[in-house]
């Protein structure tokens, strides 16, 4: 190809558990970019992808794959190999951020508070005896606990455990989604999401979104059933807490070396302290997702935000 393509490829779908969410995110961002006058092709992840990009490289790729397919860094590695610019973090940063246990320790070493947690594979429980291990976990971390796969999103496989007897089925449910479980102390408080977007002046935090799921737990159903969760944006926090949320999200973004866009999921405890739970390098963009709410509250549109990110990616050529 001698002509430089203007085509933007939005990648969505894949084979991860979050395929359905990814397709919805992809559709929304592709539409937003089309409305911003970009030439957009929405594509799934399959064996034709790499040959197609070799034959006819797009100007830029916007990965909206959620879960392992798009967030563990492998795809970013492939795009770098092909020399195709992409929106979002580098492969190395994705690898750090996608593993919740690794991300927590990196972010903690930057001075951010994150609830105590242990990451344990199923084999450890089998080899050392699950009952005594679970007793020890409860003893050390206290109840309630949160059990979640170290890799993955959309609250899939996530269980809030309020009593010791609920722990085994939570562990089994979690290990069905992935081989390693993060067992984390539950921090009660206001659940919020803080989005970080980069522009020429550097990373900045968008207005914080407060999440109030009807059932109290922001699980898969609460996330993707329109109406099942109430969002408030900007979150009605004190100015100090709002600033702390923004600072925490920026600190996480920078400590992990993230680029372009990220969303940190945080808890604001009753005493105003802010706790980092996890960060998403490819946050959901569906009709019920958090980042689009934050974008709107910042008086921007998805089309303008992603349009700028696409232009930045094309300019930096990777």
């Amino acid at each position: 190809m001698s002509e430089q393509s203007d085509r933007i490829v939005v990648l969505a779908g894949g084979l991860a558990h979050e395929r359905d969410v990814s397709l919805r995110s992809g559709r929304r961002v592709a539409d937003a970019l089309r409305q911003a006058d970009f030439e957009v092709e929405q594509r799934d992840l399959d064996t034709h992808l790499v040959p197609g990009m070799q034959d006819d490289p797009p100007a830029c790729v916007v990965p909206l794959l959620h879960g392992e397919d798009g967030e563990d860094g492998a795809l970013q590695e492939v795009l770098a190999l092909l020399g195709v610019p992409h929106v979002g973090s580098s492969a190395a940063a994705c690898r750090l951020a996608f593993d919740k246990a690794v991300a927590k320790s990196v972010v903690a070493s930057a001075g951010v508070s994150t609830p105590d947690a242990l990451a344990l594979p199923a084999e450890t429980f089998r080899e050392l005896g699950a009952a005594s291990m679970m007793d020890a976990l409860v003893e050390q971390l206290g109840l309630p606990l949160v059990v979640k796969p170290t890799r993955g999103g959309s609250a899939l496989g996530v269980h809030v455990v309020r009593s010791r007897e609920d722990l085994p089925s939570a562990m089994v449910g979690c290990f069905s989604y992935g081989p390693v479980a993060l067992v984390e102390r539950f921090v009660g408080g206001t659940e919020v999401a803080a989005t970080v977007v980069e522009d020429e002046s550097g990373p900045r935090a968008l207005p914080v979104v407060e999440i109030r799921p009807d059932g109290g737990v922001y699980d898969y159903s609460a996330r993707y059933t329109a109406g099942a969760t109430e969002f408030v944006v900007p979150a009605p926090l004190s100015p100090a807490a709002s600033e702390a949320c923004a600072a925490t999200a920026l600190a996480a973004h920078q400590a992990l070396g993230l680029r372009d866009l990220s969303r940190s999921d945080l808890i604001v405890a009753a005493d105003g302290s802010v706790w980092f739970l996890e960060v998403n390098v490819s946050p959901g963009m569906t009709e019920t997702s958090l980042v689009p709410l934050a974008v709107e509250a910042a008086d921007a549109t998805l089309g303008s935000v992603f349009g700028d990110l696409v232009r930045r990616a094309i300019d930096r050529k990777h």
Partner: protein
Amino acid sequence: MPSGDRPAESRPPAPDPAGRPAVRVGRETRLDTYVDRYAARTKGMSASEIRALFAVASRPEVVSLAGGMPNISGLPLDVVGAALHELVLDRGTVAMQYGPGQGDPTLRVQICEVMRREGIAAHPDDVVVTVGSQQAVDLVTRVFCDPGDVVLCEAPSYVGALGVFRAYECEVVHVEMDDDGLVPDALRQAIAVTRAAGKSIKYLYTIPNYHNPAGVTLSSARRTEILDICAEADLLILEDNPYGLLGFEAEPYRALRADEADRIVYLGSFSKTFAPGFRVGWALAPHAVREKLVLAQESATLCPPVFSQYAVSAYLATHDWQGQIKQFQETYRERRDAMLEALADQLPSQATWTRPEGGFYVWLTLPEGLDAKAMLPRAVTERVAYVPGTAFYADGFGSRCMRLSYCHPSPERIREGVRRLAAVIQAEMELRETFGAALPREPRGYEAPNPDLS
């Protein structure tokens, strides 16, 4: 509190220790302007983790044993194409026009010929054509059931019918089955217990042949007994029979309707014997019920799709449809054999499953302590999919069970799918051994795949 978009006034912003003014008042939204306006019956219509996993099952990398799409690759497309071409050229202005609410008279005559194969002597005037037999379940329920009325269903039962009963706010009471189908004593008991509780049973919904999802068939001996029980209890039967002509062993079973005309609404379909895309099914009902079904049909759709009815009618008239059904039987028998052999070879001895004599489905019961729904993410990771058993119960039972369909994949893919499933079950058994048995889970609403999953 109404919950469209509004400023967040219901809760004041948290005070700031430094006494600074709060940040600007936020916008409060549920991202659904209509959230407080839906009918009560939409309760439970929520996004489900399980349905999201089926999105992955549609990818070619995954062996889907979850779908129920008939395998229509053997249909003579040239014959169908020529018939449709002729239909448009010769009768296009009629075929694309509104038609009778009861359905095309010629097709209703042909439907009676189809039903004769199962021993039913019926008059075309008592047939109401519907948009698949699925719509017939809907119309019958609309005509009979008030909220709170009881429908007796097999345990497990067809997920599409359970969805209709839920939509009309019926209470479903499940009745036990075994390898010979519905258990007569269990039916007697369910009728007695339900009536003793002061509840009104509107009908027994039953799939006597090659049950979806259970894969079992009501034995000939039991058919008489079930009819006797319902006669004695003065109970209507809704006999749903989409698979009756797709048996592998012998002549079709005699329909319940063949021996009882007054107490049965019989439902049939061309979705499995021809093709589901036309959406043509029917109800055969006693005259008074039929009148109401026609009026209900006119309210629902004005008339069933005329073009589809003409297409089905032309197919029946111009093609050896019975020969085609024989070919379908062979297609499914080969796949059933592949699945049963693979299950016997691969699965641990603690698992059990049914051995269907026809139809599309095997019902598998996992070893003690395993939960098919909790295991589904692992299965999807290993590139195999099934439908967890809880989808086929209205009351949260069935967690140890799953429905496996053999209708669509090739025998090789079925063997590969079962091989993957066996590995998933093995890994889950090890996990259960480590952590102990499953706890019962909350029943949820919409957990079956879309109809277009292969």
